[in-house]
C-alpha cells in the first residue's frame, strides 16, 4: 500500500511529520506527562497504526496531529504545513469511535456536510456524496436517516464523510472499537480497499493487535506513563485478502507486536514464523486460529 502513495504526486512532503512532541496535561495535583519525545514520520499513502495500552497517549497523539490539542513542545507538520493550517485547509478527514452523524440529516446530506461547510454548490455536493456512498457500499441508503442504520453502516457513512474533501490523510480513532468481531473484519477489508482506492495516508488508533497488523504498513507500539514509542514494527504482508488472516507471517507479526507491547523485543521474526508454521502444520484445524485470536 505504501507503494500506491507515490502515485498521488500531490505532494512529496511526508503525510505527517512529528518531531520531539511532548504533551503535559495540568491536573489538580500537578502535571501528567501524556506524551514524551515522540518522533514519527508517515509517508504519503502509508497506513500506520498506533497501538498501546490505555493511557499510552495514542489518542492524544492523534488529536495533536488533528490540531484538536496543541503539543507542549515539539512540532507537527501535516503535508508540509502546520497542523492548524492543515486543519483549516481540510487536508485530513477524521473519524471517531462513535460515528457522530447528525440524526436530523439523511445519510447523503451527512456526507455532504463538510462540503456544505466550505461553500461547495448543491449539485457538486450531491454528486460527490453519492460517489462516496458508492465507494463505501451504501448507495441505496442515501435517503435513510442514521438511526435507521446499523453501527457498522453508520461508521461507513462517517468514513465517507471523512473522505468528502479528498483528504491526503485520514485520522481514525478506534473507528471499529464499538463493532462486533464479524462486522469489524468486514470493515477492515473495506478500509484496506478504500485506502488503496483513495491513496490517502492513514493514522489509525486501535486496541486490537490483529486489526493493527492486518491494516498497516507499520505498527507503532506505544508504552504508557509517560507515553512513548516503544517500537515501530514494519508489516510486510503484501496485498491484504481474507487469506492474509490465515498466513503464518500474519501470526508472526502479531506475536512480535504483542511481545513489543509486553516490553520484550523479538529480534528475529523469521525464526518465530518458522515456529508458527510448524504449529499450524501439526494442528491444522481452526482451534489454533481461534486460540490465537482469543488470546488477544
Amino acid at each position, binding site marked *: 500500500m505504501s507503494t500506491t502513495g507515490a502515485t498521488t504526486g500531490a505532494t512529496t512532503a511526508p503525510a505527517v511529520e512529528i518531531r520531539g512532541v511532548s504533551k503535559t496535561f495540568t491536573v489538580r495535583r500537578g502535571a501528567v506527562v501524556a506524551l514524551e519525545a515522540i518522533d514519527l514520520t508517515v509517508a504519503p499513502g502509508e497506513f500506520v497504526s498506533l497501538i498501546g495500552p490505555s493511557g499510552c497517549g495514542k489518542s492524544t497523539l492523534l488529536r495533536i496531529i488533528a490540531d484538536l490539542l496543541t503539543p507542549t513542545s515539539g512540532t507537527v507538520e501535516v503535508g508540509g504545513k502546520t497542523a492548524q493550517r492543515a486543519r483549516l485547509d481540510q487536508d485530513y478527514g477524521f473519524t471517531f469511535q462513535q460515528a457522530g452523524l447528525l440524526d436530523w440529516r*439523511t445519510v447523503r446530506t451527512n456526507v455532504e456536510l463538510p462540503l456544505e461547510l466550505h461553500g461547495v454548490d448543491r449539485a457538486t455536493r450531491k454528486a460527490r456524496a453519492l460517489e462516496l456512498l458508492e465507494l463505501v457500499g451504501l448507495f441505496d441508503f442515501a435517503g435513510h436517516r442514521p438511526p435507521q442504520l446499523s453501527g457498522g453502516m453508520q461508521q461507513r457513512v462517517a468514513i465517507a464523510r471523512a473522505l468528502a474533501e479528498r483528504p491526503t490523510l485520514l485520522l481514525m480513532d478506534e473507528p471499529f472499537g464499538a463493532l462486533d468481531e464479524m462486522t469489524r473484519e468486514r470493515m477492515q477489508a473495506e478500509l484496506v480497499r478504500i485506502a488503496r482506492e483513495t491513496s490517502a495516508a492513514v493514522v489509525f488508533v486501535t486496541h486490537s493487535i490483529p486489526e493493527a497488523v492486518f491494516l498497516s504498513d507499520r505498527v507503532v507500539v506505544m508504552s504508557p506513563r509517560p507515553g512513548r514509542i516503544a517500537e515501530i514494527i514494519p508489516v510486510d504482508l503484501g496485498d491484504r485478502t481474507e487469506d492474509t488472516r490465515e498466513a503464518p507471517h500474519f501470526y508472526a507479526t502479531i506475536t512480535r507486536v504483542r511481545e513489543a507491547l509486553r516490553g520484550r523485543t523479538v529480534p528475529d521474526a523469521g525464526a518465530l514464523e518458522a515456529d508458527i508454521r510448524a504449529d499450524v502444520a501439526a494442528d491444522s484445524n481452526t482451534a489454533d486460529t481461534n486460540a490465537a485470536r482469543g488470546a488477544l
Partner: protein
Amino acid sequence: MTAARRWGVRWLARAGLVVVGLLVLAGVWEAYKSFGPAAGVTVLGATILPRTTDAAMPHLSSVGRAFSAPEVGGAITFGPTTSVLDSVVDACLHTLRWAAVGFVIGVVVGLLLALLMDRLVVAERALLPYVVLSQTVPLIALAPLVTRWGQGSSIGSLQWQPWMSVAVIAAYLAFFPVAVGMVRGLKSATAVHLDWFRCSAAGWWRTLLLLKLPSSLPYLVPSLRLAAAAAVVGTIVAEISTGLEGGIGRLIITYAQQATGDPSRTYAAVLGAAVLGLAAAAVVSLADVALWRYTRGGEA
C-alpha cells in the same frame, strides 16, 4: 403502520385522555356540590374544602348558562357585545394579542440571552443567577414600575401605549423558560460532534447553525410551551395590576365585583382564561409537529 400514523394515533389518545380528565373533574365538582356539607369542611377552624352553596360553587350548568346571559356590565366596551360569551371571547382575543406580543419579545430576549451564555462562560456565570432571581420578583410590584417607565416614552414615532406595559410584563415571564431551556439545549451537542465540527474547520456561526441549534430543538419546544402559558398568565396579571381594560383579566375582576349573588359569570370568565392559556400552549405544540418531521424524519 407508518411512523406518522402511529404518531397521529398517539395524539388522538392523548386528546381523548384530556377529555376524560375534564369529565372526571366535572364529576368530582358536581358530586361534592351534591353531597358535601353546605358549610364546607373545616378542621380546627381552617376551611379545607369549600362551601357548597350556589354562591361558592355554582352548578356547572349555570356556569354554562351564564355564557348565554345578556351582558349588563357597562365596563366592557370593546365592540358591541350582547352576551357574556361574546364578552369573554372578545376579552380573550384582546388578551391573546397582548400575550402574543409579550411572547415574541420574551422568546427573542430568551434566545439572545441563551446564545450569549453559551458563547461566553463568563456571561453564563454572571447572568444565570440573575435570570433565576428575576422570576422571584413579584409581578404586582413590577407592574407600576413598568407603567411609569413607559409613560410618556415612545418608540420612534410610536407613542407608548398602556398595553405595551402589559406586553413587557408578559415578556418578563416568558423569557425565563426559553433562556434556561436553550442554555441547556445549546450545550446538548456531544463532544464527538463538537470535535468533528472543529476538525472540519467550522467557525462559531456555522457550528451554531448546523449543529447547536438543530440539536437544541428538543429543548426548545417545551420551553416555548412554557413561555406561551407564562405569557398568558403574565398578561392577565399585568392587566389587573396596571388597570388595563378590555382583556380577560380585567373582565374577571369586573364580573367578580358584580357577582354578589351569582358567581357563575366569574367562573365563566375564569374558564375563558383557562381555555386561553391552553390554546396558547396548544398553538405552540403545533411547532412540535414540524420538529418531529425535522428530527426524526418522515418516511422518505
